[in-house]
Each structure stands twice: as C-alpha cells, then as structure tokens.
C-alpha cells in the first residue's frame, strides 16, 4: 500500500483525522470507537488534541506495532478501571513530540474479561513499559503474558496474595478494610 511506504518515513506528520484514518484502514471493524477532543487555552486560543480509541483485545499487539511504525511513541502510563464484569486498561501515549506545539495525546482502551484477565506485553516494542505493567499485575490482578520481570513493584512481599486493591467488588474492599482498621484507635478526649 502506498500509504504504508510514506508513513515509514517519520518526518511526515499526520493531522489527527489522518491518524485515525491510518488505523481504521488497517483494522477496520476491530476498532470499536474513536473520538477526537480539542480544547483551546491561553490568549491565542491554540488547541491541543486528545484522541481516544477503544479497540478489541485480539488486535492489541498488532495495533502497537502499527503505532511504532508510524512514529515512535512515548508511553506515559497505563491506567486501569474496574467496570464490573470486565477490566478496562487505558494506555496513554503521546506522539509527535519534539516539534513545537504539534504533539497529539493518544489514548487506547482495551477491555479484558474478569474471568480470563490476560494481555500481551509490549516490552519488546517499548522497553520502558516494564514498570507500569508490573504495577498493573499487582494492583488489578491482570496477568501480562511474556513480561520479563514478574516481581511485585510497590506492595510488600507479605501482602496477601489474591487481594487486588483496585478492584471494586465488595470482597476486595472488605479484605482491605481489615488491613486498615487495625491501625491507630485514636482516643478522642472530649
């Protein structure tokens, strides 16, 4: 495809609509939704652009490879939401840094079912994502397949094993409150 040859050259900068079209052309229906939000700031009212996309889990790794072909992204962080039956992972990228005022924030959301919470690692494309993937493993209970280092990051080693602090179901929250209530029983003098 003629478009692919052009975009291997990272000097060409695409506008936000063209970026969305680049992904939709490749993956067609697997992209569930996409939205472009623009907000203006300052006296000159220049706009900054946020692109939000929801994609299907099956094309996740190819999507990341496609993004790296377009331009090498900067992974800011991976946030997670517990939505009841599924867990939603949001990868916040930013592309086209380095040129004044032309950066685009690119946010990709993937949903994994709670019965089988697994996702592939992106450490082979972006080695800097190791820390954020390790954190998701211990906080949300997601298993990242192929991660080079599996240890816990922030929680201590003797933290109970199947307790994932960010999940919102009642059992997890009760388990956490047990760890919390034994703290200081402050005596209040009235």
């Amino acid at each position, binding site marked *: 495809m003629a478009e692919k040859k052009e975009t291997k050259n990272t000097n060409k900068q695409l506008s936000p609509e063209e970026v969305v079209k680049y992904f939709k052309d490749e993956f067609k229906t697997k992209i569930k939704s996409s939205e472009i939000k623009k907000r203006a700031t300052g*006296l000159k009212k220049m*706009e900054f652009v946020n692109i939000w996309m929801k994609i299907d889990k099956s094309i996740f790794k190819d999507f990341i490879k496609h993004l790296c072909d377009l331009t090498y992204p900067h992974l800011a962080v991976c946030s997670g939401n517990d939505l009841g039956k599924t867990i939603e992972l949001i990868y916040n990228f930013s592309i086209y840094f380095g040129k004044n005022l032309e950066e685009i924030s690119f946010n990709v959301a993937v949903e994994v079912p709670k019965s089988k919470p697994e996702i592939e690692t992106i450490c082979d494309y972006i080695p800097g994502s190791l820390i954020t993937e390790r954190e998701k493993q211990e906080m949300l209970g997601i298993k990242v397949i192929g991660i080079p280092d599996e240890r816990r990051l922030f*929680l201590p080693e003797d933290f109970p094993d199947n307790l994932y602090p960010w999940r919102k179901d009642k059992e997890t929250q009760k388990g956490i409150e047990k760890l919390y209530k034994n703290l200081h029983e402050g005596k209040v003098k009235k």
Partner: protein
Amino acid sequence: MSSETTQTTYQLPIGPIHPALKEPVMFKFEIDGERIVDVDVELGHVHRAIEWTGMRRNPIQIIYLAERICGICSFVHPMAFCRAVENAVDIEVPERADYIRVVHGELERICSHLLWAGVAAHEIGFDTVLYLTWEMREKALDLTEYLTGNRVTKAILTIGGVRRDITSEHIPKISETINYFNKNFIKLKRAFLEDKTVKMRSQGVGILTYDDALKLCAVGPTTRASGVKKDVRADQPYAAYSDLGIDYTTPDLLTGEVNGDVYDRIVTRLLEVKQSLEIIQKAIDQMPAGDLVSEPKIPKLLNYIKKTPGEGVGRDEAPRGEVIHYVKFDGENEHPYTWKVRASTYANILPWIPMLKGEQIADIPIVAASTDPCMSCTNRVGVVNNKTNQKMMLDKETLHKLSIEKTRRLMR
C-alpha cells in the same frame, strides 16, 4: 592439591536507609572489584495509599491530598489534577488564571533546581556550593511565602482557576527577586560549570545514550540532556506557555555537544533556571485582566461535577519531568471512580540501569542524584499496610490517618 577458585561477583545492597541516599530506595549491585556489573532496584518503601484514599474524597479535598504527594513538586500535582478534572467535565479556565499558574509553576522550578544543585554539589563533596545555592533559594522561598502564604504547600489552585491574585502591590517584590537572581546567576554558573573538580567528577560518568533514553521513555532534564527533545510545555499548548514561546533546553545550547553524562544534566538544569526567569518576566508583563476562577461558588461546582460523567487526562512538566493524572467520573458520585497518578521519577527508574553499569562504586551517589529522584512521588499507590516493618513510615502520616479514622467515626 590445588583448591578450585572461581571468579565471581559480589552482591552489594545499598538502602533503603543509607547516608548517600536522600529517600528510601533499595539498590542491589553486583560488583566485580570496584566496577558495577548489574543493578537491581526495589521500590515500595514510602508507599502511602494516596490513590486509594483519593477515591473516597471529593475533588476539592483531593487537591490538598495531591499537594502532599511530594514537597518539592507540590504545585505540579494539583495542577495536573485540576487540568484532568477540567478536561473530563469541560470547565473553562480564564486567561488571567492561566498566566498566574505559569508564574507559580516557574517559581517552583527555580526553587527545585537550586535545591538539586546544592544536593549534587554535596554528593561530590563541594559543600561551599551547597551553602551558596541554598542561600539563593531562600530568596525564592520568601517570594513564594509573600505570594501564597506558605513556603512549600502553596494551596493556590482550585478547579477552574486560582485562589489568590497577583496585584500591583506584589509586583515590586517580584521584580526585586528576579533582579537578584539575574545578578547572581553568573556567580552560580562560574562556581559550578567552570570548576575543575566538578568537571573531573562528572564528565564521562553515568552516560545515557539517545537510543536508550528514547526506548525507556525517560522524561525531564534526564532525557533532554541526552538530546531527546521532550518537554510538555513546548510540545502541547497548555496554560499560557503557548503564548510565551518556549523552546527545548538541550546542553548543546551552552557547550555545543551532547554527551548524555552527569555534566550535561547539570548544564541542562542551570539553563532551565535562566529560562524560568525569562518566562516569569514575560508572564508578568503580558498578564491580561480578567476573572480568577470560572465558578467561584464551591457547592455549585461540586454539584456540577457530581452530575457529569467523563474521563480526562492532565499532563504537566514538573522540575523532574512529565507528570500525568487520569481521572474518571461516573456521573453519580462526587468522588472520582478512578484516579491514577504517574509522577516523573516513575519513568526515570529504568534509565538507572544502563547509567550505572560499568561505573565505580564511588560514583553511585552522584549518578543516582543526577536524575533528581523523588521517591515520595513514586510510591503512592495501593493500600496502607500495618505490618511492623512499615510502621515507621506510617508514623509520619499519623495525623492524616487519624483524621480518616475520625471522619469515619463522625460519619457513623
């Protein structure tokens, strides 16, 4: 009979509490003689459950919680949070508030870089420069106290604007401070950059190449010193920076070449101090008239946030790098459904590994300090643990935890 001897490496643990480190972090080095062969970093020692606590409070209370994530970055965390909330529920910010936010952000950057310069000199052993830079920093802190009421936790931000104005009474003191810094900047530059000892200890040490910095997603002056052009203020139009014209600071502006070693990081930070002084002067000159906040009545603001669902991302450039907050509201409650914080040192941990391999043990403090780590920013997530080995950390937060207990008791 000859005994079998094999050559192997030593394991040297440093931390979590050690005189060379400013904050608790656990390093495990594999040493061969005096050279470092491999590095392993373990975190989790200043773990305070701030995100979990935040998901139970309304947005006005979270601003003050975010301020206390870190003492030095105490402006950027509430700023990124306010921008995330404003992006999530569509609240406009008046232009005058944007300019005032720029002034405070740059003032904080000056204080932080001068503190870092003193700490870096102390790690080399050059204590005279420590006293010189911290004396200059006192002037900047005096100005902060005059403008906001306190030296460190500024409490000047709110959702939709700022709380205090910069009036014509304040301007003489601001001009006096800027003149003082401009005069003394030459002194600082000569003491740091043209000194033989500093050059000997820092040139060629702790090198981070351009490719490594790009792949490991490093942020802030650490990555700019290696030649990667990444700066939230110059990349995206945000607050009033797009009007003021910011450029990336890389060390070739002063020395002409980019090596990615500790000396380059010192150069980058000192150039940024100069840039911040220029930005403050421009912002004061060009400040437009207008409102300070878009919605002054707080109960109305909280009710509006309660009814509007949405998710938003707020990014900001701290003195150490990029800070990003993600907030999601579900349209039914006042407190956010999810709040995720990623401080800048989080992304600067992985670059320690290529920087420290091949160096000598005596270089560990200066290399580790050259990325300006802020461990309090990094460990915030998850749940409070009451195990005995963590009790010391929790005691420092005793007041905060007691207050949570009391609130629960009051709510019953």
